[in-house]
């Protein structure tokens, strides 16, 4: 079943087409990767889906309902969560408070406070941050800050989770742990759409991969198909 689909989605910044007529679809339960060189429009596409930016043209549908032109908080309440490439944690608040906010204001709005607290503690356990739950978020290591962004996103109870470069800047051990975490999130029944530069990670985790270049979708397929795709090789390695 399709959970998210985009039809001729476009975004212009002045005369520059950051995303140009991109069609895409994501099925329930999949892990879909989004790759492409720097400036290809990957994060812009995420911003369009999550409502951070309005689209210039085209339509994005979530569970067959149009979500283009909705505000980010409405899109979150529909069941789409995201993380940010440049982390946007609430630095002075504790790790626990960061996650608690997600539980309190996410998809299930009428949640009572004790349920929200229990959910938050459970999620901190899930991502492995129970020990540091009383620490201000800005004092965590980069890897832990990324885990916290994941936990905060999960706390909003998403069905679709957009991960923007979760593994960038992590060392090989941390990358391996992050990959494990992505699989565990999928096993909770959450569909994942992820931007990634770490090829090893994306090739082994994703069911399907989309490639953007200069705002245009140039390829789509299984990891094997992508690694052998001529256009992709050209874009990444030059002629």
């Amino acid at each position, binding site marked *: 079943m399709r959970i998210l689909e985009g039809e001729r989605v476009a975004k212009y910044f002045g005369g520059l087409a950051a995303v140009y007529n991109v069609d895409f679809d994501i099925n329930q339960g999949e892990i879909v990767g989004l790759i492409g060189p720097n400036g290809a429009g990957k994060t812009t596409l995420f911003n369009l889906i999550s409502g951070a930016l309005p689209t210039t043209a085209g339509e994005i549908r979530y569970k067959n309902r149009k979500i283009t032109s909705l505000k980010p908080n409405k899109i979150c309440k529909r069941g789409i969560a995201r993380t940010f490439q440049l982390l946007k944690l609430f630095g002075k608040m504790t790790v626990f408070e960061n996650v608690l906010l*997600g539980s309190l204001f*996410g998809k299930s*709005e009428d949640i009572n406070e004790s349920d929200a607290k229990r959910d938050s503690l459970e999620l901190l356990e899930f991502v492995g941050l129970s020990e540091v739950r009383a620490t201000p978020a800005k004092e965590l290591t980069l890897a832990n800050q990324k885990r916290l962004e994941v936990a905060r996103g999960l706390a909003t109870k998403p069905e679709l989770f957009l991960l923007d470069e979760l593994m960038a800047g992590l060392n090989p051990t941390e990358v391996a742990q992050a990959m494990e975490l992505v699989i565990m999130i999928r096993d909770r029944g959450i569909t994942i759409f992820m931007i990634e530069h770490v090829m090893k990670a994306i090739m082994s985790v994703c069911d399907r991969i989309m490639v953007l270049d200069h705002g245009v979708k140039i390829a789509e397929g299984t990891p094997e198909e992508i690694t052998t795709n001529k256009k992709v090789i050209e874009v990444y390695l030059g002629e």
Partner: protein
Amino acid sequence: MDSARVIYKRPFSLGMLFLFLILLATMPLYVQPYFIILLNTVFMYIIITLSWAIFSGPTRYISLASAAFFGVGAYVSAVIGQVLSLPLFIATGGLVSFILALFIGLLTLRLKGIYFIIFTFGVSELIRHFILWWEAKFAGTVGRWVVAVDHTTVYYVMLIIFILALLTAYHIRRSKFGLALRSIGEHEEAAAHIGISVTILKTITFAISAFFMGATGAIMATRWTYIDPGIAFNPLFSFMPVLMAIFGGIGQLYGPILGATILTLLEEVLITEFPYYYMLLFGIILIAVILFLPNGLVGLIEKLGKRGNKG
């Protein structure tokens, strides 16, 4: 450990607070009228600062529109003070400011940082000049007389508004909306992405803080008995709460209260003792505090408290 200590401390501080309120409530019975008049000014600044901090503290949107809400409240009491009973026109003053803030909020809260600061200041000045123009053009007057109320009544009204503002601030701080307001101050975009309706939350909180400013303006006008736009919309009412809150520290609820109290009393002493140098001295003290106490008095108290616990 930390939370255990807080829980242990709470009944104690609640009891203290209660005693303090009784003391305040019985004050007019045994102190000089001069002192009551002084306290009225203290309360005025406390309420404006406290309500300023309800919104600007957690969200870090520095509003310079306090004078607008205060002045509108004052004008409401000048216009309908003769017609309505005291509680009614005070509440109306607050309500009109509330509605004005909703409107201004929807217009300006999309602006961020310095743009928001300048816009709120501009709005405040705009309203002042608009009323000046309106009064001259249509009412044929510069200022207005306000129904006079005795100092003790003013005092009790101030006390009630203060308690209401304090309770409101306390409940917002402790609620999930208080947490959400703080998250807006840290990363508004992220706050929106976890489902917080940032625009609505900011606007309503802004309006709640304006309500108390308007009510204070309404009661203060009765003490002045005469107001004109220069008095009611004095830009100092926009600047002082910011200074007082920073001086006291906005990390804790008592910070703005402490800051407003001390600065008002300090101003009073300096004006009477050093009428020519008072602004100079006042400025030097403020600069010293901001340089050496970046977290205000609250920061200092917390630092001393920590040192005391260790020792």
